[in-house]
């Protein structure tokens, strides 16, 4: 199979240019200009389109086992592919928790039945996400775990975090932190500030996040650990991470599209569609997140895809669960708010979807366009205008704060091990 005339953007090699790609047996065979097709070779003309390494989502929730009314591994994978992803890393807060080889094998086998998508589960740091006892790290790594996180819950006992970090790092694996001070968070519902005061809703102060980051940075410094901060949402968090990186700490960070495209000002009608953890912050925080993406403080854009049932999201905002379904809007939001808005170059944006997560997690066959590697690619139409219509989503969660938004730029083809999914 020959992909012709596409513009390749390969951040890893700092390459940008028109080139053809030959795919054979699921692998990239050749990358060159004007490759002559074999007789009867399937030719796909990608004139005017962009080919990038397949997108990686290093932070999502597929809900299975345990919460298959919200999402299943099947609908989650279909949704991810529909968003342009060739690799995903589901979090461990399933029920039972993905903290043992049995659940891990269950999710991996389930994913294999559905597609060849790169499926790299993140296992819990502590058994049952209880923050008490570290999981059997070696056993889980041998069975396919890619990283460790208690995401959904913070680890607030610094003794346990410190020991777990040293141990997990000793195998070369990273901890992904859900940084949060649960007492400061309390029963908060949206960001604490003018909007929460105006609406009369309990607020989540921004230091709920940054105070935990500050504390965890001391643990990382003390252990010389390798550590990744998930879903960064505040200005102060960006500042802390920027400073710590300058000082040489081995840390990386991620944010989600809603933290650079929406703010608390967008919350309407007490609609829990906007309820997410961390909460949508202020315009000033949005600006700081974008600056963090620009200067490299924030390495990765992940979705934190967190689907819920419509009945749950229709509950009063005080009772509704937190989370936004993100696979199918992520790239469009990034291209619209960052790339087509001239805040970030396309190469830098794609780097945060490909090269950087692949490097943090050590993914061999993702984030690359290289002869001999798996043909995991995403084809993007950077100029495509489209309107977000959640009823067309593949995820079970047909709700989105972006409903009705006009976005510019979309993945139109997801290529997984040479298999093409047209998602125009």
């Amino acid at each position, binding site marked *: 199979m020959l992909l012709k005339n596409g513009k390749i953007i390969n951040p890893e090699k700092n390459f940008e240019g028109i080139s053809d790609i030959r795919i054979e047996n699921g692998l990239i065979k050749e990358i060159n200009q004007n490759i002559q097709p074999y007789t009867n070779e399937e030719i796909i003309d990608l004139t005017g389109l962009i080919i990038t390494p397949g997108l990686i989502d290093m932070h999502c929730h597929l809900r299975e086992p345990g919460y298959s009314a919200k999402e299943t591994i099947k609908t989650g994978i279909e949704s991810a592919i529909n968003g342009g992803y060739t690799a995903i890393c589901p979090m461990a807060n399933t029920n039972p928790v993905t903290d043992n080889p049995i659940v891990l094998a269950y999710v991996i086998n389930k994913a294999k039945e559905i597609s060849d998508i790169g499926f790299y589960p993140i296992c819990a740091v502590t058994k049952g996400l209880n923050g008490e006892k570290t999981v059997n790290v070696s056993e889980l790594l041998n069975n396919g775990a890619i990283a460790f996180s208690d995401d959904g819950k913070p680890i607030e006992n610094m003794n346990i975090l410190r020991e777990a970090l040293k141990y997990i790092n000793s195998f070369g694996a990273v901890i992904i932190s859900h940084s949060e001070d649960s007492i400061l968070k309390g029963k908060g519902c949206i960001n604490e500030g003018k909007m929460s005061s105006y609406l*009369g809703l309990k607020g989540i102060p921004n230091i709920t996040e940054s105070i935990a980051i500050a504390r965890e940075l001391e643990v990382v410094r003390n252990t010389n650990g390798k550590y990744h901060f998930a879903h960064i949402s505040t200005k102060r968090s960006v500042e802390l991470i920027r400073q710590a990186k300058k000082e040489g700490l081995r840390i990386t960070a991620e944010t989600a599209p809603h933290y650079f495209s929406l703010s608390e000002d967008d919350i309407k*009608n*007490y609609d829990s569609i906007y309820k997410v953890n961390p909460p949508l912050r202020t315009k000033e925080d949005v600006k700081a997140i974008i600056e963090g993406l620009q200067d490299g403080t924030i390495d990765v854009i992940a979705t934190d895809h967190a689907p819920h049932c419509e009945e749950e999201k229709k509950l009063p905002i005080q009772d509704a669960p937190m989370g936004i379904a993100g696979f199918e809007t992520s790239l469009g939001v990034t291209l619209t708010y960052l790339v087509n808005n001239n805040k970030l170059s396309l190469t830098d944006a794609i780097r945060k979807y490909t090269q950087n997560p692949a490097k943090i997690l050590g993914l061999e066959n993702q984030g690359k366009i290289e002869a001999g590697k798996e043909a995991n690619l995403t084809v993007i139409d950077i100029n495509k205008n489209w309107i977000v219509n959640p009823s067309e989503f593949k995820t079970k969660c047909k709700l989105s704060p972006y409903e009705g938004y006009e976005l510019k730029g979309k993945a139109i083809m997801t290529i997984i091990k040479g298999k093409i999914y047209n998602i125009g």
Partner: protein
Amino acid sequence: MKHLTDIEHLSKDEILKIINTAEEFKNGTIKPQIEGKTLALMFYENSTRTRCSFEMAGKKSGMNVIDFDAPNSSVSKGESLKDTLENLYAIGIDIAVIRHSYSGIINNIINEVKSPVKFVNAGDGTHAHPSQALLDFFTILENFETIENKKIAIIGDISHSRVAKSNIALLSKFGLKINLCSPSYMAFENFEKYNAVYTQNIKDAIEGANIIMALRVQNERHDKEGYPDSSEYKRLYGINTQLVKKYAADDVIIMHPGPVNRNVELSSELIDSDMGKTILEQARNGVYVRMAILNTLLEERTEV
């Protein structure tokens, strides 16, 4: 006015129409036109004054009043407020007066309920209490020939007070000068939006005030521990006769949405003084203002 959810959604004209209608009810110059309509009182949170006031307003308007027993209703069986409302409409209610501990619960479902039932927010969480603000405004207008250049000091637990927030929204629309006063942990973030002034010093707040509105400390809504106890609050923010006489304007009236904790936010002596008689006027006026609200909402429906 389709519903009464909060003050922000009312124009000055709509507010004045309610006030004028209430005045005519009070003077007996007009009669209610909504006889036989049905009102449901849906109080998911405790209330004495507001509940009785709406019941009286409904009965004086010739309405049937259904007292919905929220704690023992199907709500406790997991039915959503939206479904409860649809069912009550099917049963035959025209208007639902709702009190709830959740801010915004009515705003949230208003577009979801298909039935043409009317809503009145009788207090939602720490968000809004529009009928209270309207009756307070009515009472202020009754007590002063003009409200031009009048100054109100609102003192106490503003951040947790839906009464204060609705009053700030309403009185700022009519250009009153608003001084807000509270300890730091009860402050309202958005005072600038309403051209209000915030101070922690009670003397500054009531200096030259024509109206002093005291608020109850909403202990039940303080989920964060660690505030000083009420003796500290009383020492700094308790209002007594001497303080009022020394700093406030000569024509000052004392208001309180109730229930009052005597000798905490207001001294007993002040409540029982001539200046404090407005507090009972508020309760009395509440009935007429709520009659006006019910009549305005239901009259409009027949016009459509």
